[in-house]
Every structure is written in C-alpha cells, then in structure tokens.
C-alpha cells in the first residue's frame, strides 16, 4: 500500500464518498414507497386495535362495511381540521392531544383543569362522508379520572356508543361504566336540542315514555350516583362549546346540506 500525496488522498476520499452517497440515496429513494405503505398499515392496525377494544364500537366498524378509519387532528376552538399537524405523530408523542388551555372552575364541570387546543379524533368514513366520529373524552368521576371514547354518528348529534378505557371507580358500582349493558343505554340518544343546546344528561329515573326529554336522557347506574353524575358532566362538557361542540356543529351543518359530509 503506497503512501500517495494529499491530492490523491483527497480524490480517493471524494470518490468513495460519492459512490457511497449514491448507493445510500438510491436505496432510500427506491424503497420509500414500500416503507410508507408499511407505516400506513401500522397506523391502521393500531387504530383498529383501539376500536376493537371499545365494546359496541367494534360492531359499528363491522356494520360500516367497507368504511375505513382515518385519524384527524381537530382544533377544538373552531372544530376545523388542523391539516398541518400529523395525527399519528401527535398520538405517539403526547397521546393525541396538544396544548393546554386552563379552564376557569365555572366552565369546568368535568373537573379536568385544562383543555387541549388540538385533539386527534378517529373518523369512520364511507366515501367522503363521516359515518361515525370517535372522540376521546375524559373527566372526573367519583374516585378517579375516567377516560374513554364517545362515538357520534355522522349527523353530529346521535350517540353511537360510549366506552371507558381507563377509570378507578368503586368496583361493582361505579365500575359499571365499563359494562356493555350500561354502555348500550347510550346508543341512539341525541346530544342537542332544537336550538343546539346540549340536552344529553344522565338521570336517576327515566321520564315517562313519550316525554319530550326521552331522546336525550340516559338512566344512571344505580348505587353510583356520583359516578353517573361525573359521566353526565364530562359528556356534556366534551360535546359542549369548550369541547367538540364546534366540530360536531360542523358535522351537523355538513349533514344538513346533504351529500357533503366533510366539515372542513
């Protein structure tokens, strides 16, 4: 092995770097499509696992047929999609929520203290219509912070299902929030009155059949008054103006104008 001058050393170094960068760049560019496909499949798999874990909601996916699930970042204040933000990155980094706006106590019935500015929602889409929107919700129960999902139909006002994925309520009483029987009581309930005011509510005793309140109420869990009240408050908060209200309003408007299910 000879010891050449600096010029030749530089030349060899440059040549090696040139060839190596071509090889690396080539492989990155050529393999990119495969990798993107893999990433998308992974994201869908994760969402599906989440949806399958929600009792009642997985049946919706079945029923929706060829519907697919999409992740969207929603700006809560306006209800619009924040297209500049990457939903899966947000999910990975901070559990699907970004920003912290402190809530004054009088506007914080769910006892959560802060509300994010941007939240990842799951949309079950058929064609370009939103079939079901799955919204993450949380709030104070009797003993614990309860976390779950509320599934709202594409009309922006009919409840498709509710699920609590995390809570530490009294076993056997408040813990009934995770029972399929209780969650089934939410299906088909309506969220808003004719003026757009939040009317959904958890009550101790159901009103008589035919009462004007009937479509808007869910019977609470017997023996778990405070947990039921907590669920009531947190659902009312999250479908209200400080929660997903603006977003659901866009869904309602889009469903009203027929055919255009996209609230963006």
């Amino acid at each position, binding site marked *: 092995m000879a010891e050449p001058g600096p010029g030749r*050393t530089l030349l*060899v*170094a440059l040549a090696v770097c040139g060839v190596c960068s071509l*090889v*690396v760049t080539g*492989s990155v560019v050529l393999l990119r499509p495969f990798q993107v496909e893999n990433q998308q499949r992974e994201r869908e798999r994760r969402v599906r696992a989440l949806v399958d874990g929600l009792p009642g909601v997985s049946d919706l996916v079945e029923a929706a047929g060829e519907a697919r699930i999409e992740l969207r970042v929603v700006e809560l204040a306006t209800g619009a999609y924040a297209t500049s933000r990457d939903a899966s990155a947000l999910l990975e980094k901070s559990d699907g929520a970004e920003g912290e706006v402190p809530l004054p106590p009088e506007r914080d019935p769910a006892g959560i203290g802060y509300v994010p500015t941007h939240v990842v929602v799951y949309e079950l889409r058929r064609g370009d219509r939103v079939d079901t929107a799955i919204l993450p919700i949380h709030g104070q129960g009797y003993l614990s912070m309860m976390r779950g999902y509320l599934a709202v139909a594409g009309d922006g006002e009919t409840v498709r299902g509710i699920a609590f994925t995390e809570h530490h309520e009294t076993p056997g009483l408040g813990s009934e929030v995770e029972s399929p029987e209780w969650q089934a009581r939410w299906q088909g309930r309506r969220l808003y009155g004719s003026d757009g005011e939040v009317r959904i509510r958890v009550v101790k005793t159901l009103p008589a059949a035919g009462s004007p309140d009937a479509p808007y109420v869910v019977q609470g869990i017997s023996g778990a008054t405070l947990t039921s009240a907590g669920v009531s408050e947190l659902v009312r908060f999250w479908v209200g103006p400080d929660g997903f209200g603006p977003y659901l309003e866009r869904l309602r408007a889009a469903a009203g104008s027929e055919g255009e299910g996209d609230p963006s």
Partner: protein
Amino acid sequence: MSEPTLRTLTRPLVDENPITLQILGICSALAITRRLDTALLMGLSVIFVLTLSNASISLLRRQVPRSIRLIVQITVIASLVTVVDQLLQAFAWELSRQLSIFVGLIITNCVVLGRGESFALSHGVRASALDGLGNGLGYAGVLALVGGVRELLGSGSLLGVTILDRVDAGGWYQPAALLLLPPSAFFLLGFLVWGVRALRPEQVEAPEPRPEAAQTAVAGGR
C-alpha cells in the same frame, strides 16, 4: 497471499468464530437474542454487510491511502448498514421495529471493521468475500443458537410457534424468566465459549498474560 478456498469460508464457523474465539460483537448478541426470529434477521443483516464490506474494502485496498483507510472502511460499512436498514424497513417492517437501533449499530460491530482491517485489506476480492460470508455465518450461527435457547426456555416457543406449553396458557412448562433478560445471553455465551474451548483446547488463551507480553489487539472487543 492465500488462494480463496473453502477453508476461508469454514474456518470462522467454529475454529475462528468471531464471537466465541475473538469475543467480538457481544453487544448485539445480548440485545437481540431474546427471540429466534430477531436473532436470525440480525444474523442475515450482518452476513450481508460483512460479505459486501469485505469485498468492497478488498476492491479498494490498492487505491486507499493508509492515512485514511479506517475512515474509508467505516464509510463503506455505514453505507451498507444504511442500505440494510432501509431494506428491512421496506420488507420486514415488524421485525425491523423490534431490532430498532441495533441494525444501525452494526456499523460499530467490531466484527465488521475487524475483518476489514485484518483480512480484506491484505487479500483478494473473492477470498475477502468468502471470509466475510464465513464470519457472518459464524456470527449468525451463535446468535441463532443463543436466540433459540432463550426463546425456547424463556417463552416456550421457537419462531413464535409454541413448543413447550406454558403454565399461563394451561400447559405444564414454567418459563425461565431469567432467559428473557439480557444477562442470560452472557451466561449462554459463557457456556458456549467454555464448550468450544473444551473441545478445541488450542483456543484457550495463555494463562495470566503480562502487560509487556500482551499482544496488540486489532480492534477493541465490545
């Protein structure tokens, strides 16, 4: 200059195995041998990198000035490893996520640079490629052995297929949880080195090497 022979290929399998004789590449052997499939994929990746890096380094050996030979070798190795990483992400997504950074860390695997320095720089292209292939196979073999034992005894399965019915799945086998932890790979490698040296006493190092008598190592083993 030796002729490329089958011996070049077979010698690193047992007699001069990079892991059991030279104790190189231990890092990755600890980290990714919890399951057989990751161990096999890692072995394949190292075979690919080592064969091609040895061949390329040998091809360049007359052109590369001595002063920059290490940098050139590392550049070649790093490029190849990046290509492997990209390939795995494209065609073995699930496993590549489990291997995570350890694919990238093949660059720092002493076996690769060690073979480049000690063999490819002084041998022909075919001999160097064979040497790389042989060392890769030797490395992959040990990884597969350790990975197989750890998965079988630690999880009761091989390549994800249940072999021993675990207690928690209603079977009889109580898994050895220790084998799921990285240190167990150390123990297994220790037993393996012991076994190989019991069968091949010529591999046993001279006792108590004094500092002045210590040989200068080609590449520090990690």
